């Protein structure tokens, strides 16, 4: 199998190597991808949409359908992970481990034993023993708010600087995932529950599609943000910029929620009790 695989790979690689002879040089301004529609995007986007970041302009306006369905694909992937993995009946674990924080003593409570309440002095810990790591916990607690604010900045400022809904959404999701890794999964689920991730994920897609539908209601084509000018009280060009911001916020919500949802299901194999 290895030899056959190697032969296939070498044949495939030589075919691609042969194809490279016909490619334009790297950085050639006259290469085919830079000739067809891209000069129009570069030269006209700011006059047509008032958005300096061309990537955002093309992403949310010129190719709005593409992005809407990419967001739908991400939501569908989150849903697929949920359908594949989630175990809905609660099993009572054989034993639970608790740590008495002031002394660092670990308690092992067998089935039927009385569980201590989760308070300042007791915390439940995962069954693979994890040390009480002050440095990791303090650092993640310190970083998380900055990470979240940076994510919001990346989403909101995606028109003028590198950024946008996808990038900001992933940073926002990563902040929650980092919290879940450095503390534990249960504590993260207490803050942002499974239902919240599912509802936010679908709400993000709904914001996107709803903006498109609203444009249709106002008499323009689907996702033609110029129609929102009357509602937003700005001229049609600026309305495109604002319409993109609404859509990017939807994308950010959907992406961050789905990343967290996938992590919850994947890290606990669908049981949502003990994570990584």
């Amino acid at each position, binding site marked *: 199998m290895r030899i056959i695989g190697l032969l296939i790979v070498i044949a495939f690689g030589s075919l691609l190597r042969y194809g*490279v002879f016909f*490619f334009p040089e790297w950085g050639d301004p006259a290469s085919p*991808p*830079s000739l067809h529609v891209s000069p129009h995007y570069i030269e006209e*986007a700011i006059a047509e949409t008032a958005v*300096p970041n061309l990537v955002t302009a093309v992403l949310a306006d010129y190719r709005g359908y593409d992005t809407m369905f990419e967001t739908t*694909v991400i939501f569908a992937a989150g849903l697929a992970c949920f359908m594949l993995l989630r175990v809905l009946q609660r099993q009572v674990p054989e034993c639970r481990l608790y740590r008495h924080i002031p002394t660092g003593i670990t308690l092992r409570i067998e089935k039927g034993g009385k569980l201590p309440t989760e308070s300042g002095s007791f915390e439940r810990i995962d069954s693979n023993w994890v040390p009480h790591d002050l440095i990791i916990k303090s650092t993640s607690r310190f970083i998380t708010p900055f990470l979240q604010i940076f994510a919001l900045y990346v989403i909101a400022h995606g*028109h003028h600087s590198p950024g946008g809904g*996808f990038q900001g959404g992933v940073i926002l999701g990563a902040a929650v995932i980092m919290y879940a890794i450095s503390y534990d999964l249960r504590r993260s689920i207490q803050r942002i529950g499974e239902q919240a991730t599912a509802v936010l994920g679908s709400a993000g897609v709904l914001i996107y599609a709803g903006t498109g539908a609203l444009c249709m209601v106002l008499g323009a084509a689907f996702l033609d943000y110029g129609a929102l000018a009357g509602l937003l009280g700005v001229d049609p060009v600026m309305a495109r910029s604002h319409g993109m911001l609404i859509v990017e916020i939807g994308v950010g919500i959907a992406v961050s929620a789905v990343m967290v949802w996938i992590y919850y299901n994947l890290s606990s194999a669908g049981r949502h009790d003990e994570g990584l």
Partner: protein
Amino acid sequence: MGVELFSDIASKYNYLGVVILMMIGLYAMIAKNNLVKKIIGMNIFQTAIILFYVSTAAKRGATIPIIRHGHNGHGHEVIHAAEYINPLPHVLMLTAIVVSVATLGVALALAVKVYHQYGTLEEDEIRGQLRNK
């Protein structure tokens, strides 16, 4: 012949890097026995395609596709397409990266399911268990 064969490396080494990454990914998908390694091979393959697209966007002497002074209302100066790199491949790959993460999640979820069913992620052991049924 030897000189001719490698004469374009200096100007097209980005594509050659992509081809090498694609070969690594494809080899992992075909020859590796472990399902997670196959999934990672698929991800390397996706990364190669993303790099390929992004490298086609490059233009010599151009800058990132954000219009200079665009946010101050000075955007009415004439903009030349040669001054900014092509935004289109960046748009396509921006969504592709996030989608690839999401699909990686689904693939790993399937791997978790397979592990629960068969107790292993090695392909030959799974095939052996299926044959013995």
